[in-house]
């Protein structure tokens, strides 16, 4: 219990750090919403520019802007997009499911395929099998996922004359259509992830299988299968789970480009677009949401540890 409280406090510190960092970073970007509104062809006169700055509260001193933002967040108001005028909170809520679905499906699909492959690579006695699994597994990681995405689109449409429905449909409305829409993006995302999972599973299985207690189990007469399942796998999964947690970063990065290519209105593309448009509230809100997700995932991972390894307990 004390552990959770301490964790909670540090989490808050991290989130505050993130909020300050994103607040500063986004304002360091050259150009402001005024430049974006003026665009490449129109021009805003000085009085128009001043009006825009005032409208968005950008003429106040920085600490004031920061405190106003944090204050309104604590009241549940996440600000309004400079560009679309929509409330940021609502925007995030509508976009989160898409990115979440992409991430979850990628992790699930990859685990279903990658973990068994990793086990095979670690256990198999055939050097050829091991090499093959390694190389094939890593191939997915070795190719930029945007390239794979574009290739998949071209292949699907050119060879199969098929493309899923264009306008995003949530899974609770039309699960089958939704799965069709998610298939190509998840596939291109998961390829990169698969390699990591395969490699991680393989190496941590190797590590565990070399441990004393596994040898003891063998000596006790347990079959290889039982050894694998009951003793090795659980412990081997710890680093795998860690890595999957860390891969949130990769996922969120890969998600950005994948969403753009497939035209999915998710958080990644929202964030990138916010950066491009100097839409401070959107960028700040989305990054905070990512940070919260990351922190929650980490916590979940740590709690998963206690389940997987009874030796780990938190004081």
């Amino acid at each position, binding site marked *: 219990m004390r552990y959770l409280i301490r964790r909670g406090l540090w989490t808050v510190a991290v989130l505050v750090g993130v909020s300050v960092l994103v607040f500063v970073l986004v304002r360091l970007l050259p150009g402001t919403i005024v430049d974006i509104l003026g665009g490449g062809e129109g*021009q805003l006169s000085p009085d128009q520019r001043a009006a825009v700055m005032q409208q968005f509260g950008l003429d106040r001193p920085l600490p004031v802007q920061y405190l106003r933002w944090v204050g309104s967040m604590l009241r549940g108001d996440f600000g309004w997009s400079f560009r679309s005028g929509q409330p940021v909170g609502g925007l995030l809520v509508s976009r989160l499911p898409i990115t979440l679905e992409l991430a979850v499906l990628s992790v699930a699909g990859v685990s279903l395929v990658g973990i068994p492959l990793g086990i095979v690579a670690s256990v198999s006695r055939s050097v050829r099998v091991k090499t093959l699994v390694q190389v094939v597994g890593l191939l997915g990681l070795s190719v930029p996922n945007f390239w794979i995405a*574009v290739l998949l689109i*071209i292949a699907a449409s050119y060879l199969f004359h098929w493309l899923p*429905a*264009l*306008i995003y449909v949530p899974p609770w409305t039309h699960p089958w259509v939704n799965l069709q829409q998610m298939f190509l993006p998840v596939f291109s995302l998961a390829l990169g992830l698969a390699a990591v999972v395969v490699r991680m599973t393989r190496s941590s299985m190797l590590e565990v299988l070399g441990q004393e207690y596994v040898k003891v189990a063998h000596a006790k007469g347990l079959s290889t299968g039982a050894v694998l399942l009951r003793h090795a796998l659980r412990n081997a999964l710890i680093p795998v789970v860690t890595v999957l947690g860390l891969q949130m970063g990769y996922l969120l990065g890969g998600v950005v480009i994948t969403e753009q290519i497939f035209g999915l209105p998710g958080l990644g593309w929202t964030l990138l677009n916010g950066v491009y448009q100097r839409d401070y509230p959107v960028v700040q809100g989305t990054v905070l949401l990512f940070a919260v997700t990351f922190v929650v995932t980490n916590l979940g991972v740590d709690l998963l540890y206690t389940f997987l390894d009874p030796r780990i307990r938190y004081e």
Partner: protein
Amino acid sequence: MARFGSPERFDRRTFLRGGLALGGTLAGLDLADLSRAAALAAAAGPPKRGGTLVAAQEVDPVSLDPHTNSNFSALQGYEHIYESLTGYDEKTNVVPALAEKWEISNGGKTYTFHLRPNVKFHNGQTMTADDVKYSVERVLDPKTASPWRDWLILIKEIKIIDPMTVQMNLEGPSPDLLGAFAALRASAIIPKGLADRENLKIKAVGTGPFKLAEYVPQDHITYARNADYWDKSLPYLDGMTFKILTEENTRLAALRAGQIQYATLTAQGVAQLENASGISVMKAPNAWVALHYINVSKKPLDDARVRRAMRMAVDTNEVIQKAVYGAAVPSGPIPTGYGDWSLDPKTLPYAKADIEGAKKLLAEAGYPNGFRLEIKCSPQYPEFVASTLVVQQSLRRLNIDAQVVQMEWGSFVAAHNQEIRTGGKEGGEIFASANTFRPGPDGYIYPYFFSKGSINDGGYDNPRLDPLMAQARSITNHDQRRSLYVEIQRALLAESPNWWWYAKFNIEALSSKLQGYRQSFTGRRLFLKKTWING
């Protein structure tokens, strides 16, 4: 009133010379397509009501506010919903829209508009002079921060004569004013007080042929037919959905799979369609002039000989081939095809690269060993990056080391704005960009090259041209204006305060089932309201 050229009347020989110069593969870009549209139209049969068009939009509109947007994609988003006092026809002539007729008096300083009666907004209320006054005043209000306010800036007073009559008094004559309304960048008529009640960025209430059904930013925008549209026979479609697909490969895939019936493509995209069945492609020049803005306050760019020499070193057709895969024609300051305002591309200078002449000129100006400079561009528009690379390559032959600086769009715009605001002292030297449609020739000239123009890069000041520019924008005699603009353009081409390259083709791919669509020189989808679906 100004007259504009039509796509069909465009000079084919010029197209050929512009497009095929380098002899590369130009699959799909053949002249037959230009007349194919006309042939198809003839065979179509009578218009049919009904059906929903599914289309791709290549850039997110971001905001649908018809008065505050500078990006062309916003215009593409709201142009079906809103209208103004005047509009354009297929030949880009100004025609009545929400104003049935008008009188110009008082030496061009007073416009009296007689509004069309019984025009209903999408919320049911009837349009009156109050709405017109409110809309125009909103654009002029500095708090609205409309980037196109300059087009209407000469309006100093709006008087309501009666509910159907509006009078506007100007500071001085503005021969392009009617075009400024028709261009719809900052002239949509909205219900009085609407901006205070609604968030116009994602909600829209206009008088146009389509109502806004739904706008989900970055995803899609859906329109529904306006049953009470003042032109009773239009539109034919029941609705339209534009899905935002920024990646061209995805647009092509959707076209091939039959998921969408309309998309705007690049020439490379068309070549990859490889005559897919059921899709026809329309191409016509449009008002998109690719250019480089030059900061004329920075040495050595302050010397016209240097700028001219650099321009001479670059082969225009090579730029066209590599930047837009051949789908453009050479152009001067006013895009080729803009009525009789633009110069005949056959008579444009710099048709072929002249390295020897350029070297001589450069030496004469005092830079025989070249110099170093930076050219900024943004990957937001890959064609400008490509054209800049061609320029860089060509300048090497003059010993000029041109660094290409590719910047993210926001940074690019910020740098350019900084350069303009500081009179050229900071921000950069050369910027790759384009000019889209302007309501008249003045929009391509005055703001940039008049000594006190609002977007003058580096303070270009030509005492001989200044009075000509001021005069050309205030007289109404078409022929007199025309000869002034010809003279101004020729002078500008010689002085090269910008480098102008080409007028790009507007390439639109449509399902063969779509009938009645016409391209517009403005680059907008003006005639989707006249489009119907066959079968």
